[in-house]
């Protein structure tokens, strides 16, 4: 794979590179009177030694992190077909927008008059999101999709509580991402699973049998985690709404339908969006993302506080409204990952409504095309419906050769490709979940399909080439079992080897 440099070499940690007396930092001269620490901090327990931070000169610092970067795969390096992650190109203009000094240096406690630009940008982003989802109002506080899930579920909880309606069950499909049931528990609900039918869609009959007066709501991605559009979404919505429950839309797969289908029109009451997926803000190795939540008018009173308000029509000024008596509270110390939200706004402004519809169409085109190409190597797990922006292959065919999908994935690395998501969703045996996104060219997809076909072919002829993969990387397969059994979670001089 293209992760380069120092094959089969370990890189010392910053602590091993450290030499006493070296440093990078130089702080400004202090031009105020000195203080006697023992006097001004009388009675305070002071540090007996400085924390063991590295002592390193700036060039060696830069080289260390450059080497770290060279040992890492990113979208900038190559194809990154992780299902449900929308690993698409991250436009660089967004970096420039977020770095504008007016945005970058805005203090969260500044009086509103001093931060009108940021407030207006955030308010505009909310307008984009409400129109794109077909809903009424938004909060930008959640720092990630999972925190958005928690916020949405807490609002569902508050809605029922306010009506003195005691409901304690959130229904989650068996194909759902693990955050859905985990968020339901975190929000104080019992998570109950509804099975998928043989065609990969929610078993609507089973759902109708499951709903009752305990049902607080249903969490659903549409298209679902298999990449299939739940065509009976309106019957699903009716089943939930008829018993007094609410419908939660997990926006992990919004890239398939942005600008073309709106969750609000499908009957959803609350939506979270992952701006690091659909709106291409950088994933950053696992965050920071942002998970704005958009809700119907009925749920608006329960939004986290504060809420951004525009005064006048057209708006002449922006401020925070803290007086939200029915609010669920808040989930962030300030106003969410604003730097990330500004990047998302720039993405929306670049595309406009038409651009988003074109984006999602090409995402679906690429997924259908790649599903057709990879179908020669491994079958679709659920071929009954056409895939949307992603698809799931079933890799059980290689098992007769003593090979698992994990081995295929590791072999893909040697063939130059980051593997897809594997062993998810859980309802597919030996699953490979593939999302190419719209920013990949057909020749890239052809190359990946050929590599997958090669790896699957090798499974029959030379399975050890898969068992021994990867061989081209800085380290080979790692002993995860002993890492968990005897965890070494920090560097110490004693663990230096």
């Amino acid at each position, binding site marked *: 794979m293209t992760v380069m440099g120092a094959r089969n070499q370990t890189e010392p940690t910053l602590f091993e590179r450290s030499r006493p007396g070296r440093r990078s930092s130089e702080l400004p001269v202090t031009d105020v009177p000195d203080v006697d620490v023992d006097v001004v901090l009388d009675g305070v327990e002071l540090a007996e030694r400085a924390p063991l931070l590295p002592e390193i000169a700036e060039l060696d610092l830069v080289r260390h992190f450059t080497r770290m970067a060279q040992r890492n795969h990113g979208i900038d390096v190559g194809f990154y077909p992780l299902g449900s992650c929308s690993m698409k190109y991250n436009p660089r203009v967004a970096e420039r927008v977020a770095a504008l000094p007016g945005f970058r240096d805005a203090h969260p406690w500044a009086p509103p008059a001093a931060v009108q630009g940021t407030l207006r940008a955030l308010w505009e982003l909310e307008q984009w999101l409400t129109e794109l989802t077909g809903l009424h109002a938004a909060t930008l506080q959640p720092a990630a999709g999972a925190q958005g899930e928690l916020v949405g579920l807490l609002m569902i909880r508050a809605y029922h509580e306010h009506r003195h309606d005691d409901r304690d069950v959130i229904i989650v499909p068996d194909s759902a991402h693990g955050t859905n049931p985990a968020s339901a528990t975190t929000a104080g609900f019992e998570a109950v699973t509804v099975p998928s039918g043989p065609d990969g869609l929610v078993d609507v009959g089973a759902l109708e049998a499951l709903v009752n007066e305990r049902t607080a709501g249903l969490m659903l991605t549409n298209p679902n985690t298999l990449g299939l559009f739940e065509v009976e979404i309106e019957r699903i919505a009716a089943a939930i709404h008829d018993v007094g429950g609410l419908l939660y839309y997990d926006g992990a797969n919004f890239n398939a339908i942005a600008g073309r289908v709106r969750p609000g029109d499908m009957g959803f009451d609350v939506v979270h969006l992952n701006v690091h997926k659909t709106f291409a803000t950088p994933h950053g190795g696992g965050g920071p993302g942002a998970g704005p939540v958009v809700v119907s008018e009925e749920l608006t009173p329960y939004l986290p506080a504060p809420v951004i308000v525009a005064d006048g029509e057209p708006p002449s000024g922006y401020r925070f409204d803290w007086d939200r008596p029915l609010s669920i509270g808040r989930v962030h110390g300030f106003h969410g990952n604003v730097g990330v939200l500004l990047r998302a706004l720039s993405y929306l402004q670049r595309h406009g409504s038409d651009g988003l519809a074109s984006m999602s169409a*090409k995402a679906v085109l690429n997924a259908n095309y790649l599903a057709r190409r990879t179908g020669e190597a491994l079958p679709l797990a659920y071929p009954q419906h056409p895939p949307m922006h992603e698809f799931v292959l079933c890799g059980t065919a290689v098992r007769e050769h003593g090979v698992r999908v994990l081995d295929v994935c590791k072999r893909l690395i040697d063939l130059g490709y980051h593997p897809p998501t594997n062993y998810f969703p859980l309802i597919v045996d030996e699953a490979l979940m593939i999302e190419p996104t719209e*920013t990949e060219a057909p020749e890239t997809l052809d190359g990946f399909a050929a590599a997958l076909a090669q790896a699957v072919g090798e499974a029959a002829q030379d399975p050890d080439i898969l068992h021994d993969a990867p061989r081209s990387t800085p380290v080979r397969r790692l002993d995860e079992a002993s890492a968990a059994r005897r965890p070494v979670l920090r560097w110490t001089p004693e663990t230096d080897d």
Partner: protein
Amino acid sequence: MADYAPHTAEDISSMLDLLGHDQLDDLFAHIPAHLRIARPLDLPPGRSEDETLADSARLAAANRTDLVCFAGGGAYDHYVPAVVDAVLQRGELLTSYTPYQPEVSQGILQILFEFQTMVCELTGLPVANASLYDGASAVAEAAAMACAATRRSRLLVSDGVDAPTRTVLGTYAHPLRRPLDPLAVVADGRTVVRDIPGDVAAVVVAQPNCFGIVEDLRAHAEAAHAAGALLIVKLEPTAVGLLATPGSLGADIVVGDGQPLGQGLNFGGPTVGFLACAAGYERRLPGRVVGRTVDVDGRRGYVMTLRTREQDIRRERATSNICTNQTLSAVAATVYMAWLGPQGLRELALGCLRRARAAAEQLTALDGVDLAFGGPFLKEFALRLRDVDPAAIIDGLCDEGYLVGPLVDDPRGAGGPLVMVAASERRTSADIAGLAGALQRQLKDQR
């Protein structure tokens, strides 16, 4: 209109041919027609990069950029060195995702291992995770850990924990029916911890607290432990340039916001939450954890570990619902701490303390301006302003080019809200004199 997709018209038609479709819309034909948008959305048309940037620059310019920052309240105007930005813009780090395939993610994994090590050093505890969203939600996650570990549900939360964090903690605790009781702050600005009931899972305090005052963590830990409760400390990380680490004084879980560590202001986010704990709680950690191991050839390498706690495996029985967190912000903090070094951290903490003492001295020399508390402070302190509306003073100072705040409620309920003032290493004696002069004028104008 932006189009980052590479497809030529020819690409599209040949791909559609393979699929047996005539046009792109056919890919959506199985979706009920009335759910497909038939009209243009009520949104502006797409714009060129140049125009988008120009629009953004106009908005950014609508923010005041001329303010001399003495504001605190959890967000501090520390310098962010150029190397931090340079590292963050490396595409291999910026555009990577959660390191599910460790062989091609050793860079992020090793950096997170280094981050965990540094968090352990700052907190004085042996175990840390690979980041959380921010300091406020980190307190909520720590409380959940403590409730699970003690099998108790009540939380005692100091009034010295900042108001947003207390609200976040309440938002997380309410659905799980975990009661929150307040702990009072007294005249010197410190929390009083005594007579802890037997059903308390944890005592939650901040170091320094939201009034800037250094807490007596050793006493708090002893009181908490005597009742079988854990001590959770929300730490402002630069404080340990001078103070003993919370872990060395008996804290069981130490969390905080890494904003002061190379994150910049960004209107409060993104920053990075951190969490460290005493030995024995590893398997209750929320979020990602990186561990060191070896590969099949015996070479050192890093993996995400203790994975069976996590939502993608444990689902509704996970220790938390966290998936994506704040990795790149943790990278920034790691670069910053390495840039700073141990000597730099001490100089930073001491430099801020000297500036804050100088500011406090000059500001309290004004008539009707007093320190709200008698206890020791580091880079931030609380002022009580007599006979004026403090909010109007803050606005007036802003007009004069000085940013102070936030306003915080006086925990003793006496008088109006207090004004927080913080001094970073970037403030000069001239800045401090300027602020004092501006405050003097504002007090005169408003009395």
